[in-house]
Every structure is written in C-alpha cells, then in structure tokens.
C-alpha cells in the first residue's frame, strides 16, 4: 500500500504552483512570495520524495535566448496525489495559483 506524503503549507503551495506550469525556482518565488531559502530546499526535498521530477531544458533553446539552460520541475503522479490530499487540508491553495499563461 503506497503512503501519501504529508505536505506543509509552503510545500503544498509550491506543488500547486508547479502544477499550474510555473516550472523553476525563481518563478515559484515570484508567484508564492516565498524566500529562496525556503523554495530551493523544499524543491530538493520534494524531488527526493518523488513528488516532482527535474529535467534540464534543451541547450539550443537556452542558447537561442542567450542564457544558461534552466532546470524545470514537473509534478509526478505521486505529487499529484499528495496535492489532492493537501488541497483537502488547505482549501485556499486551490484559489491561489493560477495557470501560467502560455505565449501564443
């Protein structure tokens, strides 16, 4: 039987932000208002717990925009399950993060 990971309020907020398409640390900081000292360690912990999965963006895309390649995070199936549980516990989280606007 798999056990759902219990999330703190900040972690749930970050997971929700990631699920809405804000995929990297600095973006999460801007959306949630959490400091970098909270966001990055929490990202490591969630990645270690298998709630999120980090992947590097392609070098070509980064070079085209003249910047170093970023590491993007995506919510895994276990993370989605944990988020559902967390939203029951913290109902306001559902109203907080809005889906990221996709450029046309």
């Amino acid at each position, binding site marked *: 039987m798999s056990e759902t990971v219990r999330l703190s309020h900040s972690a749930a907020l970050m997971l929700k932000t990631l699920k809405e398409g804000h995929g*990297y*640390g*600095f973006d999460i*900081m801007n959306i949630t208002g959490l*400091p*970098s*000292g*909270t*966001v*990055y*360690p929490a990202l*490591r*912990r969630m990645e*270690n717990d298998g709630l999120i999965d980090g992947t590097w963006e392609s070098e070509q895309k*980064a070079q085209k925009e003249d*910047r*170093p*390649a*970023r*590491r993007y995070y995506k919510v895994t199936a276990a993370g989605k399950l944990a988020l559902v549980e967390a939203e029951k516990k913290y109902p306001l989280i559902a109203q907080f993060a809005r889906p990221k606007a996709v450029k046309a």
Partner: protein
Amino acid sequence: MSPHQQLRSLHRQLGRAAKVVPRIKRETWQAEWVAELSHAYAQDPAAAAELAQGLVPDAIMMRRIHLQHRVEAIDWRSPEFCLRILLGAFAALAAGGLVQPHFRNAVFSSWGLITFAWFFTLAILTVPSTVVVSRFSAHDAYEGEAASMRQRAGRWYFLGAKLLLLVMSVYLLAVHLTLPLVHLIGRSANGLLIPCGLVFNVIVIGWAFNDQRERCPTCMRLLRSPARMGPPSWSLLDSNATEEMCDRGHGLLHQPEWQTSWCQNARWLQLDGTWRELFRP
C-alpha cells in the same frame, strides 16, 4: 555596489556554498544556480542578491539528503559494520590518548607493557567462564550443520577480530580512566588497571559471545524479527521459545526460554534454497 562588484560577490557566494554540496552533485547544482541567478540578474540585480540568500540553505539541504541516503545505505546487521564500529572506537580511544604525553608514557613504558600483558592474560582467563555463562557453547548452530569450512573459518575470524578489538579498546579505556587518578593518589592508581581489566573484560567478552550467538551462522548477519512462540499455558507442560530469523533466509534460531530435558539449547533451523524467495535479496 557596481554591477561588476555585485557579480563578483554572487560568484563568491556561489563558490562558498558549493563547498557544502556533495561533490557528486556539485556541478549540476552550480549549473542550476548559475541559470537561476543569471535569469534573476537580467530581470533585476536586486532580485539576484535576494535569490542568492537561498544558496546556503539549499546547499545544506543537498548535504542533508546525501547524508540521509548514506545512512539508509548502511547495512546495520552486517558483520563488516560491527567490525567497523569496533575499529572506530579503538581508533578514537587510541587517537584521544596518543595526543597526551602522560598517556603515551603510561602505555609505552615497561610498566604499561606489563599491565597490557596482564590485561590480555585476564581476558584469556575470562573466556572459558564467559562461554559457560553466555551458553555460547550450548548452541547447536555452531556444531557445524550445513556450514562449509569457509563459513566456519569466517565465524572464527569474526569472533577473533571482535575479541581482539574489544580487549585492546577496553585496555585503552582503562588507561584513560585511571590516568587522572595518578594525580590524586599517586602511582598506586596504576594498580587499578588490573581490577578494571577484570570487570571490563567480563563485560566485553560476554557481549562478544552474545552478539555472536545472535547472528546467522551462515552469513554472520544479526538476526531479526524476534517472535515469541507458544501461548502462556505452555509454561506448564511445554516450552515457550523465541524465534529469530536471518533476513537472507538462511534459517531460524529457536531459543527456549528455559532449559528442559527435551529442549536444552538454542537450535538453528537451516532453511534450504527454496525458502530464499520469501526473503529480501
């Protein structure tokens, strides 16, 4: 602060924090932070400075996760781990003593060598009585059923290494304990090493034999999952016992709670290969 100075400051902070990150993850971690910092700097230099405050907590978290994985990977039940712990204790006691000139004089003087010889003799003399008390000899597992010569030799090497390390460690411990007393009661404090040796040797040798008894005779790993066998009513006409198993599936140790005419000793039930699939690899 000029942009040049700020970039240098960010670079220094990144370099300092990277030292905390485990070497195996350092390069990736730095690459991620360089990307994040340059992105933030391009938007607003002040935001980059704020972002850099997360460098150290993040590096510490990386180290914590790495340590957690290393602790989880330790095989606590293995004989190698036991020997490593004993070797570590011996090394710590030796290193703690050898930095003190009084300790060095006490250990390496002719008196020190004589007391060590006494200590060792006492340890050897303690072994037979401890074997009887710990009922180590009354353990059918060590009578050789289903054990190859290599496994038997391994058991004896393991026991020998444990005893040697323990006796040498308690000798150093006894010197550590009695040395401060020399300043209080003079050289007669050195004589306390012998009674110390007697007490310490009985304790550690007893522990070594009991630990040996609690291990699988095939792989020398500590047994696990003790289960009490038999309802309380068996106390009258039957025998209660505790059973422990080897997590590699080599067998079960059946230890009666008291000796009866039909079940006097701890018995080792060797399991054949067909049982292995029920156990962890």
